[in-house]
């Protein structure tokens, strides 16, 4: 009798569970990867995080795929409102809460981003109303670029404080023109010299000012600065901007085989990297 009853209960619970499962189909099959998302991250998980936070009205910025300060505060407020530990990290439990509380239409969001449209993703508002209609003004080339772009669909990037991608590009041009044959560290050192000059009292105070100072860099004088820099030069510049300075705070460097000025030899020398001697 007892056994029978327990079988009955089991059967009942299985039935009930099944009923629940069929009544509430499981949430989006694909939600967040396993990573803990932290400030500064980029990529699809961040797009999803921003979209879900916006769905609940915590996040009011653009859904751009970069975990910046706006996303950080939105996440903390979410954690606060939902009575969780406030750490600004999107870990398993936070992500689970978000998934339970929101719906994420990945196709829609990605489509808007791909089209470069201005859109938002608030819950309870029909999606169609959240896309700004814009005249088809985009140039052919831009569209081609966008179709070509694969991989992460973030529309923004991290930049070191105080620098624009364009400053970095300009520096990469100078580094490539000046030191493309040098080892990687030598390229970082050349970029560091440009930054040291910006900070020095005896040189102009902007990146452009330093680079285009007459007679400062041979690559500027002979036009090699306008060659297209490669990825290595760009990464070297990023490292220098992020604080690496293998030159030892140098503000001059020269190639001893080709240096025409005798004066440069009188500068106190710090070290030699590749073909360049770095000096104070």
């Amino acid at each position, binding site marked *: 009798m007892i056994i029978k009853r327990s079988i009955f209960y089991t059967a009942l619970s299985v039935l009930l569970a099944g009923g629940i499962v069929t009544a509430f189909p499981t949430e989006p099959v694909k939600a967040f990867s396993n990573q803990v998302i932290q400030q500064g991250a980029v990529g699809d998980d961040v797009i999803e995080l921003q979209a879900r936070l916006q769905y609940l009205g915590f996040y009011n910025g653009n859904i751009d795929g970069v975990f910046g300060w706006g996303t950080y505060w939105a996440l903390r407020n979410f954690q606060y409102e939902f009575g969780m530990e406030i750490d600004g990290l999107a870990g398993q439990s936070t992500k689970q809460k978000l998934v339970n509380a929101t719906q994420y239409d990945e196709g829609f969001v990605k489509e808007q981003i791909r089209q470069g449209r201005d859109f938002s993703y608030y819950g309870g508002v029909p999606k169609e109303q959240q896309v700004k209609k814009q005249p088809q003004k985009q140039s052919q080339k831009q569209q081609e670029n966008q179709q070509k772009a694969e991989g992460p669909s973030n529309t*923004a990037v991290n930049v070191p404080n105080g620098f624009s991608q364009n400053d970095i590009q300009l520096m990469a041009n100078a580094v490539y023109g000046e030191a493309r044959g040098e080892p990687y560290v030598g390229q970082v050192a050349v970029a560091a010299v440009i930054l040291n000059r910006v900070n020095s009292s005896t040189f102009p105070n902007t990146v452009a000012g330093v680079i285009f100072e007459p007679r400062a860099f041979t690559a500027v004088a002979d036009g090699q600065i306008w060659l297209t820099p490669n990825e290595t030069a760009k990464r070297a510049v990023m490292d220098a901007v992020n604080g690496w300075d293998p030159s030892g705070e140098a503000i001059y460097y020269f190639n001893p085989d080709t240096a025409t000025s005798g004066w440069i030899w009188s500068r106190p020398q710090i070290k030699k990297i590749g073909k360049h001697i770095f000096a104070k």
Partner: protein
Amino acid sequence: MKRWILITLLVIGVVGTGVWGYKEHQDKNAVLIQAENSYQRAFHDLTYHTDLLHDKIGNVLAMNTQKRLSPELAQIWRLTSEAQADVGQLPLTLLPFNKTEEFLHDIGDFSYKTAIRDLNKKPLSDKEVKMLEKLYKQSGTIKDELRKVQHTVLEENLRWMDVQLALATNDSQGDNTIIDGFKTVEKSVAGFGEENNSSNIIGIADENHEFKGLDGEKITEQQAREIAKEIFNIKGDQKLNITKSGKGADVQTYMASYQQGDKNGYADLSEVGGHPLTVMVERPVQEAKISLHEGALKANEYLKSFEFPDHELIQSSQYEKEGVYSFVATQNGVRIYPDAIQMKIALDNGDMLGMSAKDYFMNHQKREIKEPAISEEEARSSVNPEVKIQEQHMAIIENDLAEEVLTYEFLGTLGNNTYRIFINAEDGTEEKVERLKATEIKFSRAV
């Protein structure tokens, strides 16, 4: 008949070449004149600005009321920066002219610091007035020398293009009037430098070059090799180059570098104590497999293995397949911003790609942290009420006068922007306000 056709063609050819050549010549001249003109403008501006600077310093000396003083000092500050910009546009890089530039910078520095000071509370001291008198005299000398050069340039129609040529070819420097004139200016300033050093205003070092955080015994080249091998995690007979830094370095280092396939490693180790100041590893990074967060944990492990004391992660950024992390040291929970360390982690396998601990070893020392004199509530009231404060810490920062001060650090939002605000924990002054901007829209979609 044939001959005539040939002759006509030849004539057309010759005339055509002539016309083309003349046009080219004209174009080239136009470009040269334009370059020359911009040099001339910079030079004449420079003389004008130094002249004006001299006048303004004179005005300050004659002034009695403190009220007018600050605007006048602000003017001086602006003029020095204009003059500096003029110098930057002249082709003088190969000519030693840095003493003059430093002189301009020092006047600017002095006038800025006094202009922002509340002169009603803290008027110019006698020492500072003496300093101004000296600066007045010296700027007068510079002005006179520059005016002399200017006069010769105008009278003899000298061209800056010739200066550029003379400097580039490094000959006939002896007989170029402009170069000589600038050398004279430079020499007279170099003379002031020695005179002024005692007064501690000229020659204020903006950058401290002393490395306070280095301790330990001097290491040998062999020891440097061992340390480098450990850092790069390489074993046995892998070739590793060690070189020593030159005499001009602020701190003597051993530079270790190695190459293995498409992987390059580089490290700067201080001679004193063998501490790693800079580490860089360059290799192709594969598809990212770990998250920025896991990378941060790895970075933390590496820092522990280097035996850095307590530290805190203050910023992390993902650049494609690499994670860059900024740490600052902490002491009893107070963030010490000058003691900063940067780490770079490859997000394919979590290996370290770089570390920069130069700032840390330059500034680190045992600090006595005083109790704050004002409460957090009081500090909060010094923050703009429009800013919504979200987070707060205690922090030590270096202020505009290059002094370390204890502050309350507030992170707050105003509209869509996030600000970091430092309030002095002694007297509640707003030491620093910065807008935190770490992202930018991607201009090109093709990565």
